[in-house]
């Protein structure tokens, strides 16, 4: 009999809420990530990205209707999740007094299976010196060691929490190569949280934007970028726009210039704006991921 292939999503969250005292860190979050995809989790500092990832790893407890990782309920079986997921935390918890080779030996004894070949290849790719003590590693080397440990136990999924912050461009590129190499070899699901939006764009097929614990949007990255646009209008002297077009996520009036960023763009929306009293000239601009991200967040701050 052939084993049945598990077709459950890599991550399935429904109604997840996490409070720290009176602060709501994650607010009724629902998120499904299919297997084999790469998901970029974006959000300003304090949005709840790390908290969500820690909950998925079973490090933090939380209330949820559903909280499944690779078809396993994290709350009842956190050990199984840890065995099957490679985790690169924001803060590395690697014993500083150990040598690189000792850290590898230690992790090797904790995980079944452990792939010595992957481990050796990654060690070579990253030019990590096994004899070096962890406390003597640079920040970049430490990040690479953390990724090495996460990929060597052949995980079905990688959870990368801000792995690129504070790394120089060369190390970032090497880190990306390491992640891409393992995606190419094993077709893993990857969830990466990062402020390095260009790198997220290169890696991800889907993104989610988290703000104050709530998911503002989850969409295919290309779809979101080609359907979100800025409508820029020139206003006649003394005129203020009456109402923004439907689907506006953020707008600003600055002198005669009126800018509205809209989702689900269509030419009708331009016509709508053109038809408004006081509008002289209308132009449409495309957005990059960084501008799109900022407009989503700024829109939330204004609407408060």
């Amino acid at each position, binding site marked *: 009999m052939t084993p049945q292939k598990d077709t459950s999503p890599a991550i399935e969250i429904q109604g997840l809420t996490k409070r720290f005292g009176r602060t709501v860190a994650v607010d009724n979050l629902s998120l499904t990530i299919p297997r084999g995809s790469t998901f970029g989790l974006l959000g300003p500092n304090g949005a709840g990205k790390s908290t969500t990832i820690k909950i998925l790893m079973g490090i933090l407890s939380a209330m949820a209707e559903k909280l499944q990782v690779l078809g396993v309920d994290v709350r009842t079986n956190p050990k199984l999740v840890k065995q099957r997921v490679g985790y690169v935390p924001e803060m590395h918890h690697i014993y500083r007094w150990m040598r690189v080779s000792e850290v590898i030996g230690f992790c090797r004894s904790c995980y079944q299976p452990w792939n010595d070949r992957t481990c050796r290849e990654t060690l070579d790719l990253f030019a990590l010196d096994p004899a070096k003590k962890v406390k003597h590693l640079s920040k970049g080397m430490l990040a690479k060691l953390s990724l090495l440990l996460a990929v060597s136990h052949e995980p079905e999924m990688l959870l990368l929490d801000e792995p690129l912050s504070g790394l120089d461009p060369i190390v970032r590129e090497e880190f990306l190569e390491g992640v*891409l190499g393992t995606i*190419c070899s094993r077709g893993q699901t990857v969830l990466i949280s990062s402020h390095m939006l260009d790198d997220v764009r290169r890696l991800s*097929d889907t993104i989610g934007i988290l703000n104050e614990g709530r998911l503002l949007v989850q969409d295919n990255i290309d779809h979101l970028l080609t359907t979100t646009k800025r409508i820029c209008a020139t206003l006649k002297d003394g005129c203020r726009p009456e109402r923004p077009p439907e689907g506006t996520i953020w707008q600003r009036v600055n002198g005669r210039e009126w800018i509205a960023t809209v989702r689900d763009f269509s030419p009708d929306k331009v016509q709508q704006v053109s038809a408004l009293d006081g509008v002289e000239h209308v132009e449409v601009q495309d957005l990059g991921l960084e501008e799109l991200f900022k407009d989503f967040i700024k829109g939330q701050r204004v609407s408060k």
Partner: protein
Amino acid sequence: MKINPSSHVPIYLQIAEGIRAAVAAGVYRPGEALPSLRNMAIQIKVNPNTVQRAYDELEREGLIYAQRGKGLFVAEKGTASAQSQAGDGVRRVLDEAVRAGQAAGMSADQVRELFNKAIQGMIKIGSKRR
């Protein structure tokens, strides 16, 4: 090949355009293999699924073809088809330039003059091909 992650243009389209340009320029010639999915993904630092999408697109166009177990190869008519496709890319950029001129309130003659200057610059740099 240069990928611009800050652009709104889907990365798979950027890759497809980059490969078309490379074929048109003779970097990859008819009958030659393209880099494997893995090599291309790591070389340009892009998710392999995205590279696959670009390869699918080029296969549909007939620029490249798959040979089972061997990889992807540039089609016999690849160079000619890439050159005509590259023309479409140039047209898009020119359209954008004309729109920018129009938005700035320039006349057709003023835009034409700028275009002629750009062509002059191209002749100075010179092209050995054709």
